[in-house]
């Protein structure tokens, strides 16, 4: 390895309005190493590498590549310097093949030979151990294959400095392993790689050194083999953090929610939910695990009356005039459901697209669920304002007041407004979808505490999550979805993560062998596309367990 650094960023500062994305941050990428850039959301990881890949221009600071001082004004400049970035959201032409996407935009003759391109791509892939069919069309690809195409595209353009932005967020554990193997091959070939992540297990598995950022500032750079999870967490958060999640014991009450043979189609007419059945009792948390796009969104939205079902039933316990019955609610609008004496709270996955209105203030967002309660044509803002102020105080929401615009709050505070409002309805059934996505460690644990509090109050909680470790620690029972089917309901105290991981991919192999059903991998693609306001921080499976010895 040569003495010169592949990339040296010095004293980089970047502001957006009054906010520092990066403040006096430096980064050293050595020749032929894998550097993990670790930090919580909002710590400035992506902003920093975006300045390297020409998307942003720094306010101040210097960048050197291979020892030469450079000015990177556009992605084209970055390419010319041999810097290639693989973004979280893929930039591929759907109707082109892998090889066509890879050679796209490269200089060459007017006529092109598909055979030659395919051969070139195949050779390149073989060199690093990629599995790819150069002639495969992008629309036929799984997320992992698309990512592979993106990486080869960058390599084909001659990049020797690669930046991968949260590459594992959309991958299954097995795919993650393959990616890491390829990364090691690239490293052996002399490529220098920056991997952005907030998953500690991956950092420890694949990187040589780790640079930690916190709140836009540089914290430290350490050698991976000299550090551990707790030290890294402490650096990320700024203080020691206990990573244990409580599971208070509550004796389960009556059945509050019963789902029977629920089936749904997606917009293409494919089955996304196939005869899903389960019950949830008061005082328990039912965790729902599955690879992204296994039907979680449709499941919670159809229970909440927001997604059309093609069959089955959803029953909820209704207490109206001393009478307690299981009321069928499937196909009813949310307001109709609440008129039946059922108090169901739902924290949707898309917070600002479904749960809240970003352009409105906290008061109006709190009012969203209750504005119909008073009589007359006018809205009553007094009660919601009082509630908004109470939520801000109780949940330590950082906002200038009840009049703060929700869309301008940070992700954790947005989520607290949403969960706080839903819990304030005193629900009997609480459905939360990916409540900690994009939140930092502190906010996440605050959310877990809130869910446990509801459980102790006798609420039936359905928790749809992506981090298997959290699901196993928090839930009382764990339902595993696979391709829209329930592949198992297990006791999280008794199963291992590997066993649950197997349930999650149970019939993936069968499906891809030509069964009529869509392989779950294909459905997976939908999720990242739906993410509009936030980055996609899925943790479909923590890969720690699959780390090679």
């Amino acid at each position, binding site marked *: 390895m040569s003495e010169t650094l592949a990339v040296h960023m010095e004293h980089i500062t970047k502001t957006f309005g*009054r*906010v520092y994305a990066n403040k006096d941050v430096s980064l050293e990428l050595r020749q032929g190493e894998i550097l993990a850039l670790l930090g919580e959301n909002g710590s400035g990881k992506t902003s920093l590498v*975006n300045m390297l890949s020409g998307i942003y221009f720094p306010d101040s600071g210097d960048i050197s590549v291979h020892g030469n001082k450079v000015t990177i004004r556009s992605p084209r400049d970055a390419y010319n310097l041999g810097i290639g970035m693989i973004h979280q959201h893929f930039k591929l032409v759907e109707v082109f093949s892998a090889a066509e996407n890879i050679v796209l935009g490269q200089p060459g003759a007017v006529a092109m030979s598909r055979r030659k391109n395919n051969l070139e791509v195949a050779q390149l892939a073989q060199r690093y151990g990629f599995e790819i069919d150069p002639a495969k069309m992008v629309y036929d690809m799984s997320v992992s294959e698309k990512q592979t195409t993106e990486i080869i595209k960058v390599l084909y353009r001659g990049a020797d400095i690669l930046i991968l932005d949260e590459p594992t967020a959309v991958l299954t554990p097995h795919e993650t392993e393959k990616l890491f193997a390829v990364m090691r091959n690239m490293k052996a070939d002399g490529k220098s790689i920056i991997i952005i992540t907030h998953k500690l297990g991956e950092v420890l598995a694949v990187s040589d050194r780790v640079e930690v950022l916190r709140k836009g500032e540089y914290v430290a750079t350490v050698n991976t083999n000299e550090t551990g999870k707790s030290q890294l967490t402490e650096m990320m958060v700024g203080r020691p953090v206990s990573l244990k999640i409580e599971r208070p014991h509550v004796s389960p009450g009556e059945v509050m929610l019963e789902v029977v043979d629920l089936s749904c189609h997606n917009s293409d007419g494919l089955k996304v939910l196939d005869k899903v059945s389960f019950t949830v009792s008061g005082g328990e948390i039912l965790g729902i695990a599955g690879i992204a796009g296994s039907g979680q969104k449709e499941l919670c939205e159809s229970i909440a009356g927001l997604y059309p079902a093609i069959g089955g039933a959803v029953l909820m316990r209704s207490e109206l005039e001393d009478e307690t019955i299981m009321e069928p609610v499937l196909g009813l609008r949310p307001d109709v459901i609440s008129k039946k004496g059922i108090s169901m709270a739902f924290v949707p996955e898309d917070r600002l697209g479904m749960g809240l209105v970003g352009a409105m203030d906290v008061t109006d967002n709190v009012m969203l669920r209750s504005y119909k309660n008073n009589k007359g044509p006018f*809205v009553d803002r007094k009660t919601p304002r009082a509630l908004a102020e109470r939520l801000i105080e109780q949940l330590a929401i950082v906002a200038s007041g009840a009049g703060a615009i929700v869309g301008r709050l940070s992700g*954790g505070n947005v989520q607290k407004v949403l969960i706080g409002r839903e819990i304030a309805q005193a629900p009997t059934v609480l459905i939360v979808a990916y409540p900690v996505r994009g939140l930092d460690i502190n906010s996440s644990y605050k959310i877990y505490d809130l869910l446990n509090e509801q459980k102790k109050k006798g609420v039936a909680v359905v928790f749809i999550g992506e981090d298997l470790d959290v699901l196993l620690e928090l839930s009382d029972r764990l339902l595993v979805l696979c391709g829209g089917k329930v592949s198992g309901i297990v006791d999280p105290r008794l199963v291992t993560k590997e066993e649950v991981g197997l349930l999650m991919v149970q019939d993936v192999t069968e499906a891809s062998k030509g069964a009529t059903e869509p392989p779950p991998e294909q459905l997976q693609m939908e999720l990242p596309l739906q993410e509009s306001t936030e980055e996609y921080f899925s943790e479909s499976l923590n890969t720690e367990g699959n780390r090679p010895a």
Partner: protein
Amino acid sequence: MSLKRAEKKEPLIRMVKRDDVSPRRAWAYRGIAFVLALITGGLLILALGHNPLLVYRDMVVGAWGSPTVIRETVKLTVPLLVTALALGLAFRMKFWNIGGEGQIMVGAIAAGAFGFFTADIFPSPLLITLMLAAGMLAGGIYGFIPAYFKANWNTNETLFTLMLNYVALALIKFLMNGPWKASGSSFPKMPMLAPAARLQQVLGVHWGWILALVLVVAAWFYFNKTKHGFEVSIVGNSRDTARYAGINVKRVIMRTMFISGALCGLVGVLQFAGTDYTITEGITGYVGFTAIIVAWLAKMNPYGMVVVSVFMAMLERGSNTIHTIYKIPASASNLLIGIIFFFMLGCEFFIRYRIVFRGRTPAVPVELTGNTGIMPASAASPFELSESEEAGNA
């Protein structure tokens, strides 16, 4: 890989996003933009060989110089203002109602059905009430039609409402040439409205101006204080959120567009029975389109619409005056209006971004949270900066 190509200097000009600008400052920018527009317009007038200051003065005098011209200005303001209120309501729902023209025309036609043919039957107050009711109903239905299709089949409301304008225009032409043609006239035109069917005047202008002011206050209340207004805002922001909140989205779309169309229909009646006393192809005075600009410049605020529509009416009146005095063609005054819009809309860019020239580092922003370097938590950006709030709570 050519290193040389990348070793250029930093870009000559680049945009940097501003932090939230205080409303005062934003208005100051708008004020500057307005002045710049007047200067640019002045250069245009200068090029035509006139003294810009005199021309501007005469424009103001032409609009406000005497009771007579004030009345004329108010008469121009009323339809513009009420139409802007109507369109603003739809725009708040992000329903692009470009069909104000058509809704005004059908309102006038429906009023004409009573005004022309029942003037002898009903007493004046009842007749005018009937005309108002018919006009609003017709306009409402005309607005409801595209909303119904939008709500049920998600049709494109922009095209739909726009095309309905031509339908209404064709209807007027048909009536003018045939069934409603004034007897004894060789031209295709409709008869004049009987005096009993005309609107009373208050301070020299038909009482529509009072109604318009009442509607401004009512619209403000509707937007801000009623459940309906709240629902309109939610549907406009996110239909998924609206469904989640238990709002019947289809009903809100149809109801809101009915109201929007009804207000436009009302404008038709006011123009017909208040100023024109007959129906021609030009009954709308193009307010259905001009009001779109009024609503946007006022940022959908009813009180803002008063200011903007008065200003627009003034420009129109003033341009008539300068046409008469200086023989400046009317098209030149339209150009002036265009210049003002250009600057007003352009300044919104400068409210959001600032320009940094090469070699000048943007001023480092004031740090809010002391020396810890922690980002202010209330400021979120669409980039990776969202989670910073917990630092203080630790």
